[in-house]
């Protein structure tokens, strides 16, 4: 079985972002970019499944501008066998990404598609569900544990839901999206980074995949959230209780 993993290039999670003065978006020039943390977890899970003898190949896929190749190299250095870059410019919303994935799935015929549950830039939490819907595959979203049964072609997934943990059993092929607690992603070692340079990254354009990138969404402006007014530092528990009672009136 082949596993396909989606990886997105986003602003590093530790960077304090700045909104552009003209309100058209967030400053991305000269800002550290990294692989989306949930995508790292997705790739790690795919690698573990392969190392457990349940999969033969792990293919990492990224969509977007030319720099996505750097993210794919990181994925190859972690252990992915090969990569696919869909070269697309301009805004790429989850619906288009899902359609591109569907086209790639039809070409590559993976038995499992793993994505992060959300990208930490747009915070959409949509792509996995949408590609599952388009393919008619079952979906195991927000996974914190994945167990595969190769004989029966089943995936058992523990999902992080509002009330606790929900367990689902799905027929393969399926789509899984990863939550934070699924695993601890590995670091790429120097020899593996060197090896990754000779691995293949295949390039497609949306036209080659017969997908028209269109959008039914329009971003009008991006602004900073309202600032909270400055707080005070109290010196004792008594003062704190007094303030909460007589100033804030919350207790």
């Amino acid at each position: 079985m082949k596993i396909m993993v989606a990886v997105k290039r986003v602003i590093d999670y530790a960077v304090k972002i700045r909104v552009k003065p003209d309100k058209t978006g967030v400053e991305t020039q000269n800002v550290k970019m990294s692989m989306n943390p949930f995508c790292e977890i997705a790739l790690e899970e795919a690698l573990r499944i392969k190392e457990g003898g349940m999969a033969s190949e792990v293919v990492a896929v990224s969509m977007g501008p030319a720099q996505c190749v750097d993210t794919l190299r990181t994925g190859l250095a972690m252990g992915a066998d090969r990569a696919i870059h869909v070269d697309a410019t301009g805004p790429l919303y989850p619906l288009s990404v899902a359609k591109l994935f569907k086209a790639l799935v039809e070409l590559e015929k993976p038995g499992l598609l793993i994505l992060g549950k959300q990208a930490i830039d747009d915070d959409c939490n949509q792509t996995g569900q949408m590609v599952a819907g388009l393919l008619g595959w079952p979906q195991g979203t927000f996974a914190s544990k994945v167990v595969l049964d190769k004989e029966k072609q089943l995936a058992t997934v523990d999902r992080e839901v509002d009330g606790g943990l929900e367990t689902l059993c799905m027929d393969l092929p399926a789509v899984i999206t990863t939550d934070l607690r699924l695993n601890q992603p590995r670091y790429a070692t120097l020899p593996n980074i060197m090896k990754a340079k000779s691995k293949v990254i295949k390039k497609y354009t949306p036209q080659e995949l017969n997908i028209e990138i269109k959008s039914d969404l329009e971003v009008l402006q991006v602004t900073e959230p309202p600032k909270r007014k400055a707080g005070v530092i109290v010196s004792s528990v008594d003062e704190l209780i007094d303030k909460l009672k007589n100033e804030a009136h919350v207790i």
Partner: protein
Amino acid sequence: MATRAIHRAFAKRTVPFLTSQSLFLSSISRSVSTLVLAEHEGGSIKAPSVSAVAAASSLSKDNSISVLLAGSGPSLQEAAAHAASCHPSVSQVLVADSDKFSHPLAEPWAKLVHLVQQKGGYSHIIAPSGSFGKNILPRAAALLDVSPITDIIEISESNLFVRPIYAGNALCTVRYAGANPCMLTIRSTSFPVPPISADSKSEASISQVDLSTFGEDAVGKSRYVKLTSQETERPDLGNARVVVTGGRALKSAENFKMIEKLAEKLGAAVGATRAAVDAGFVPNDLQVGQTGKIVAPELYMAFGVSGAIQHLAGMRDSKVIVAVNKDADAPIFQVADYGLVGDLFEVIPELLEKMPEKK
């Protein structure tokens, strides 16, 4: 696209002709009608779903709101009755009663939404952005070939919305310019439900969804196994008036009990940071933050929480924030209304002693 528009126009024309009023409504091209996907439990619909109805009612004045419930058994009928009276603007409750919906699985639910949309031709479909809505709505949107919009905090016009991006560090105003339906999940803390007075209470009609065309192929590819949940008597984290949160500085699950004791005294819900969850002090469903729950209580008390971007994303809209931390430079103090620099192992026992009992 064109064929879909014609199909929709046709679907719209076949339904009205019943009263002059509905004829009038169908002649307005951008009339608003909303389907709310509701989650229910134990015979009543959940609070975030009522918030979704409140959000729907703010879309437009003459919005006709239908609530869709799915499930099986007597608790579904009780929930339908509750849905019919949960908010004065609900005009219709649609009930899909089938074993296929015993658990809220995404595959049959998305098919159901597709089916109901084809019959009803709604302009908007809304769900609360909890794990239920986030799981189901994007899948249904893909089936309907439209872009969904996640976690809306403000509705400016019927197609103009504000949502947070980058863990709440920026607000994005988006216009939906696509075909109907416009599909949204809403952040329930941004759409509070006003208390319903007895005289404004109205009973909406309840009708069953015709499932005769609902294919068997919609189910069977995934099966529900079990739900593991922690029983607790404390209020639900998402809706609590007061939230008491602990971070890594609590050092152990044993020490975390101090947080729970304080929460009990205040009638508060307990929250946690990712560090506290990863260290195994508390279960994951208590995590507050970008990837956990989003809360906006009247009082948020953070003990031993440094205030990482990802945690602030989940609580920055709280009315009053209190932070207790040993480190005077901790980022949490930048958002706190009241900060106390001190050792939480001394502060919490003192608070336990001096805080007034819950009202």
